[in-house]
């Protein structure tokens, strides 16, 4: 496939969205769907059907292009629909990549309804399998997969928190003390008791949004992480120690734990070995539990071991990993040097951010500058638009405003955030992205990374 010659078959619908529309009325309108199918007939039909569902549709006829596009427009899509049989890349491979790198729900479809293929979809983690010809009715309800996945991720977050109750509780409670109006020690004790007695689920949900702004795993941060992991040795690398070694202010044990989990999954995939990472219970495995055997092996080289033994500097490891993935996916059609600019694996790409935690995110618009020309999307609005805590936000999230102006979005976005979050957040205050990534545009929209929280993390308890 010659990237240069064949024009990118990309079309994007321009769903009309009127400012001021109620959130709940709109959903699931505005759901951002990426459709990948090499059959132009089917692609056109699907596009029209999805548009009729009031979804925001982007079509693509090549899996590799779709994957690269997704990487460049992280958090720009809610769900991916992909054909199984495609000439340049097996649909299941695309499914794996999307699941691993972007953690988006993926629906597979095919004219093939044989049980084995459908089963393959299941084992590879597809959230649904549609038999062609696809009818409108089947597409109308795809939003359920997005909601389901979000819910699952929130529950996961809760599990992680409960895993280190003491740590968490102390920190949380201490943090809360700072902002309680009462300075009375007696009151503090009371509030502690109250917290223990209150409904756990709600409590955790609330506190998790307050205390857990999304961490952006930039290249530098990930480098530090990998260095720390290698120093400790992958088997001995526990979040607490990694955190200590990294010594990044504001980073929590949970952030590290979550990132470590994903990192382990990634390594497993690379080496093609399926084993349970030490120190993790099954509940910590991500919602997308696919077998790892199908990733191409790195010619028997265990890069992880190499890195750990100190023969491979961590930076090289990251690059190698990216390169390996690159080799696996592009079949040598993309020259290796491109790895640096054209990310294969999220960790290595300064453009992409491996974002974990809550669904809030830093609306880092650095990606906007790296957009491919001609792709008619406004990434600012998209990124902001993916701020969704509840399914109800979807409708409002379709801020596909072609006008490129941020000022339009600013007043819109604020009221749509979770109120719990806004309580302690100074919305208009531009916040430093501690990970060192530049805030180019939209710096005023960093309200999901509360400045208030910065103070908390700098507490001596850390």
């Amino acid at each position, binding site marked *: 496939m010659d990237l240069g010659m064949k024009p990118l078959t990309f079309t994007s619908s321009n769903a009309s969205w009127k400012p001021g529309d109620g959130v709940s009325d709109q959903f699931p309108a505005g759901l951002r769907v990426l459709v990948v199918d090499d*059959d*132009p*007939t089917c692609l*056109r*039909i699907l596009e029209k059907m999805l548009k009729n569902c009031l979804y925001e549709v982007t079509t693509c006829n090549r899996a590799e292009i779709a994957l690269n596009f997704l990487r460049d427009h992280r958090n720009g899509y809610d769900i991916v629909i992909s054909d199984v049989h495609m000439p340049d890349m097996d649909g299941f491979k695309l499914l794996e990549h999307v699941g691993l790198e972007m953690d988006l729900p993926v629906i597979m479809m095919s004219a*093939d309804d044989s049980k084995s293929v459908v089963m393959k979809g299941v084992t590879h983690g597809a959230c649904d399998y549609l038999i062609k*010809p696809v009818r409108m009715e089947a597409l109308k309800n795809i939003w359920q997969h997005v909601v389901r996945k979000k819910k699952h991720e929130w529950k996961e977050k809760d599990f992680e928190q409960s895993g280190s109750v003491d740590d968490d509780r102390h920190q949380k409670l201490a943090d809360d003390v700072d902002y309680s109006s009462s300075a009375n020690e007696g009151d503090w004790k009371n509030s502690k008791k109250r917290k223990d007695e209150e409904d756990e689920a709600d409590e955790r949900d609330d506190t998790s949004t307050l205390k857990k702004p999304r961490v952006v795993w930039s290249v530098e941060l990930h480098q530090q992480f990998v260095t720390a992991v290698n120093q400790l040795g992958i088997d001995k690398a526990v979040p607490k120690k990694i955190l200590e070694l990294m010594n990044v202010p504001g980073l929590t044990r949970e952030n590290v734990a979550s990132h470590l989990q994903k990192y382990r999954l990634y390594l497993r995939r690379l080496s093609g070995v399926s084993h349970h990472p030490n120190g993790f219970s099954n509940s910590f495995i991500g919602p997308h539990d696919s077998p790892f055997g199908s990733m191409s092996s790195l010619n028997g080289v265990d890069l992880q071991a190499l890195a750990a033994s100190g023969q491979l500097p961590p930076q090289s490891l990251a690059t190698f990993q990216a390169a390996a993935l690159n080799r696996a996916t592009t079949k040598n059609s993309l020259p290796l040097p491109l790895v640096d600019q054209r990310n294969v694996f999220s960790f290595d790409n300064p453009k992409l951010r491996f974002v974990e935690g809550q669904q809030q995110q830093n609306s880092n618009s650095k990606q906007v500058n790296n957009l491919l020309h001609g792709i008619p999307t406004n990434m600012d609005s998209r990124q902001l638009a993916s701020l969704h805590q509840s399914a109800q936000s979807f409708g409002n999230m379709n801020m596909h405003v072609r006008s490129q102006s941020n000022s339009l979005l600013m007043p819109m976005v604020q009221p749509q955030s979770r109120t719990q979050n806004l309580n302690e957040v100074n919305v208009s205050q531009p916040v430093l992205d501690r990970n060192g990534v530049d805030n180019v545009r939209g710096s005023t929209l960093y309200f999901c990374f509360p400045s208030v929280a910065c103070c908390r993390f700098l507490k001596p308890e850390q």
Partner: protein
Amino acid sequence: MEVDQLQRNFLEYTNLLFREGFLDGQFSQLQLLQDESNPDFVFEVVSLFFEDSERLLNDLTIALDQQNVDFKKIDAHVHQLKGSSSSIGAQRVKNTCIAFRDVCLEQNAEGCLRCLQQVKQEYLLVKTKLEALLRVRVPHLFSLEQQIVAAGGAIPMLNDFC
């Protein structure tokens, strides 16, 4: 001719195509998708189908002409054709493709050649009929749809076959 009459002709012809199995319910789905914002939707999609099919049929001809027939490749092409024909509701083409795949599994080159012939035939048939219905590229000759449009009428559709 009166618009009414034209519309009735259109419906009758569509009905016929459904009854004879050239088209199935999926075609109705396409018609449902046609609206003011996309007034040529059905024609557009059908045109895409024609283009794609002709390419596939060509590839199939070449593939079956080889010394060593690559049955996997053939199967892939036929699968594609099956998918696109089913998407527009070209039922007979789709069914022929299904039979084609079975023969392909047997790795029967002779059988495949026969199937290819059949598919080509079915394809040409449905193409002619769809063109007669939607749009004909022959000057001075108008399809049923074109006649309705020229007379200022709306394109009717059958509800029974949805």
